[in-house]
């Protein structure tokens, strides 16, 4: 089936929905999602969305700007960060007017709480900046945006999985997607296409990400010659539920929780004396791993405790009900009485499809744009987060840059004619599917995936070194072979999730390779990228963005300078 729309949006998380709400003012909009819009992993965001409203104590967008730059270890592009932090207040007010049920102060204003790395007076002390709706902030915003979109006549295509982004030279024509329910391939012609497909935490074994977070569109774009920026930077959230990786929000520490090692010490006092347990995530994750490596895990084992027993029960019930429920359901622990066992969990990709501040996708390191292709949200890299994202900045990123991309697309569609996807693009996708269905190989997708994820976790997570990364890259090439050798049992066309999982696995392995190669070439430690063999940050050689390109010779790199406007790189101490 063939569709024609002015704007096509792949992904229905916060970025996609916010863009849809904007683009629909200028033309027809289709939103594709491989789940249902309300099932997006944006809904799992717990802690908050950052904005210097100053509702609880004095705050300023400038401090927010500084914190974000410093939190990102000075790799973030400061023009983008400034846009994000300056626009934050307007964004929150707009969301509130759309109906987001933010938690309130006694005067009825939006309540705010402390979050990692957010400080007043340029690092003096933690500040209350995260606006929240208990510990379901993402869920609250996702529903408000979805419901408004439904109201605005955006056309939703739930359970449509994108299989290809169609390019004609330097112009994007739209995308091909499979209607999961029937197996039919649909061609979506669009003047402007937004990739808002979210993260790819599933490259790692332990992750807070959804099973659906497989980075399909990044894999597709990379195949189409679009570079991927800063892929070595993958954030590990310090407090994932031990064994499961389920996120325990930073808000738990914002409300007074603290991390405790096997000796009963509040060890963050040693690593970040000023803001302790509210240090940025990369630092805390490294601190936890260091404690465990040096034998100070709980009982000498591989986890530490997040202790929120000191937090008032009333506050737990009001502001952290969801995580209390997780702990009870999955660990059998009442967090008001017992500490929670936690371990860093793969959480957020700072890297992704390079874009400018209006979501236009860059074709190369010079900033040349791909006509009609846009990206926003976790899959994009505007580089507002640099080498490490601060908590509660991701929701802000999605809404701010989602809106900007929506506006840019609204303008762009007036300047171009209808696109027409050619028949052979559809045939190529069908051939790929046939190849998977007809494969007589002996590998099972589940086994390959599990081994791949474990390998990535072992060799390329919180700490990295040359030896591990080199082995990893070698082993990954064998995974590409094994991928071709996977056969599936389900040969049908209706709801063939087995087939789609193989396709997703292909993207995951491709992304794993880019992550590993990017990590190997960056010979310094910055933000979430910690090299044991290069433990220092090296601004002289590495204050630049990595652009990974797919070539016949494998992944190759080019570099783009970091935009530094206001804050010169300085030592990152808390």
């Amino acid at each position: 089936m063939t569709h024609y729309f002015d704007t096509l949006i792949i992904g229905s998380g916060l970025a996609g929905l916010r863009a849809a709400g904007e683009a629909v003012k200028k033309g027809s909009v289709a939103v594709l999602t491989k789940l249902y819009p309300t099932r997006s992993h944006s809904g799992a965001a717990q802690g908050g969305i950052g904005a210097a409203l100053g509702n609880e104590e004095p705050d300023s967008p400038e401090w927010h700007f500084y914190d974000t730059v410093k939190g990102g270890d000075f790799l973030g592009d400061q023009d983008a960060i400034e846009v994000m932090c300056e626009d934050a207040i307007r964004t929150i007010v707009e969301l509130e007017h759309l109906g987001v049920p933010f938690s309130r102060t006694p005067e009825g204003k939006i309540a705010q709480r402390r979050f990692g790395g957010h400080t007043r007076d340029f690092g003096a002390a933690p500040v209350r900046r995260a606006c929240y709706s208990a510990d379901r902030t993402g869920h609250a915003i996702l529903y408000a945006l979805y419901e408004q979109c439904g109201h605005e006549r955006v056309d939703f295509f739930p359970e449509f999985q994108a299989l290809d982004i169609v390019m004609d030279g330097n112009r994007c024509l739209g995308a091909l997607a499979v209607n999961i329910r029937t197996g039919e391939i649909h061609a979506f012609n669009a003047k402007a296409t937004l990739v808002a497909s979210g993260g790819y935490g599933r490259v790692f074994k332990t992750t807070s990400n959804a099973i659906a977070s497989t980075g399909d569109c990044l894999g597709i774009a990379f195949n189409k010659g679009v570079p991927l920026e800063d892929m070595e930077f993958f954030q590990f959230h310090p407090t994932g539920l031990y064994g499961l990786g389920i996120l325990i929000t930073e808000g738990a520490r914002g409300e007074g929780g603290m991390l405790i090692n096997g000796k009963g010490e509040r060890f963050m006092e040693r690593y970040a004396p000023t803001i302790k347990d509210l240090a940025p995530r990369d630092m805390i994750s490294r601190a936890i791993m260091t404690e465990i490596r040096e034998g100070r895990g709980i009982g000498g084992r591989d986890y530490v405790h997040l202790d929120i027993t000191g937090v008032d029960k009333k506050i737990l019930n009001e502001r952290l009900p969801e995580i209390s429920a997780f702990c009870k359901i999955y660990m059998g622990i009442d967090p008001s009485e017992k500490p929670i066992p936690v371990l860093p969990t793969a959480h957020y990709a700072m890297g992704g499809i390079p874009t400018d501040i209006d979501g236009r996708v860059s074709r190369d390191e010079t900033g040349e744009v791909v006509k009609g292709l846009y990206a926003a949200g976790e899959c994009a890299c505007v580089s507002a987060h640099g080498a490490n994202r601060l908590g509660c900045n991701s929701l802000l990123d999605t809404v701010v840059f989602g809106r900007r991309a929506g506006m840019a697309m609204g303008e762009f569609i007036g300047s171009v004619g209808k696109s027409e996807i050619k028949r052979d693009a559809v045939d190529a996708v069908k051939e790929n599917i046939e190849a998977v269905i007809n494969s007589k190989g002996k590998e099972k997708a589940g086994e390959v995936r599990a081994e791949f994820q474990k390998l990535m976790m072992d060799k390329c997570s919180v700490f990295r070194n040359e030896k591990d990364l080199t082995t990893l890259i070698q082993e990954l090439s064998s995974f590409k072979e094994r991928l071709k050798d996977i056969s599936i049992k389900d040969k049908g066309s209706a709801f063939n999730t087995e087939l789609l999982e193989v396709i997703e696995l292909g993207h995951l392995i491709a992304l794993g390779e880019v992550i590993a190669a990017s990590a190997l070439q960056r010979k310094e430690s910055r933000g979430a990228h910690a090299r044991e063999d290069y433990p220092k940050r090296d601004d002289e050689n590495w204050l630049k963005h990595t652009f990974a390109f797919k070539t016949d010779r494998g992944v190759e790199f080019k570099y783009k300078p970091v935009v530094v406007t206001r804050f010169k790189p300085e030592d990152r101490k808390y």
Partner: protein
Amino acid sequence: MEQYILKIKRFDPEKDRKPRWEKFRIEMEFTDRVLDGFIKIKDAIDGSLTFRRSCAHGICGSCAVKINGKSGLACQTIIKDVPPGEIVIEPLPAFPVIKDLVVDIEPFFGKNREAMPYLINNEPPPELERLQSPEEQEKILQSITCIMCGCCASSCPSYWADKEYMGPSALLKAYRFIMDSRDRALEERMNSIAKPHGLWRCHSIYNCVEVCPKEIDITSHIAKLKRLAVKKKLSGFFKG
């Protein structure tokens, strides 16, 4: 590791004329989720087993199925909480089955849209946020946690019988906006729910409350709407 038997009701629209039962023997940890069982089966035994899943920790609402006769999230049902023996898994009742455990959830979403699920306030917005006291927010606090998994509707006898009944989640959605102090569309919303296939088909059976994975007290929210409707009607009478 313990052996468990998952007895799953399967249906392949391209092969089967009617659903069939299949038993899978798998090793599971005491602390595993039922969803982990599905994934184990799909990865190691039968890749064609089809089910929805995404977040795996009870926030996305994808994996609702009937487990031992009770609608619930597969990712939030821990093996140790299920009585020992066979675990019987079926697709959610009340929805047409597409394949295996996947049901057509589209009508369910459609019914939610009947309740006009978006904030309506045409007054000029203030420069900053609209104020809302914590007490005012308290009223909607439970209702905003709904994840639209469909467990409530699928276990409601009224919903089973009446194909046009809006169902518990749509009524809860209406409640969420009616009780929001910022909303200004009480009249329209009341019209959208106070109708033969709306509010009055709730008979306070409480099945929705029994199964709601978010532990929302749905029935009492609906009862509040009934009382509000009566109050509004009667006050309308007395005003003329």
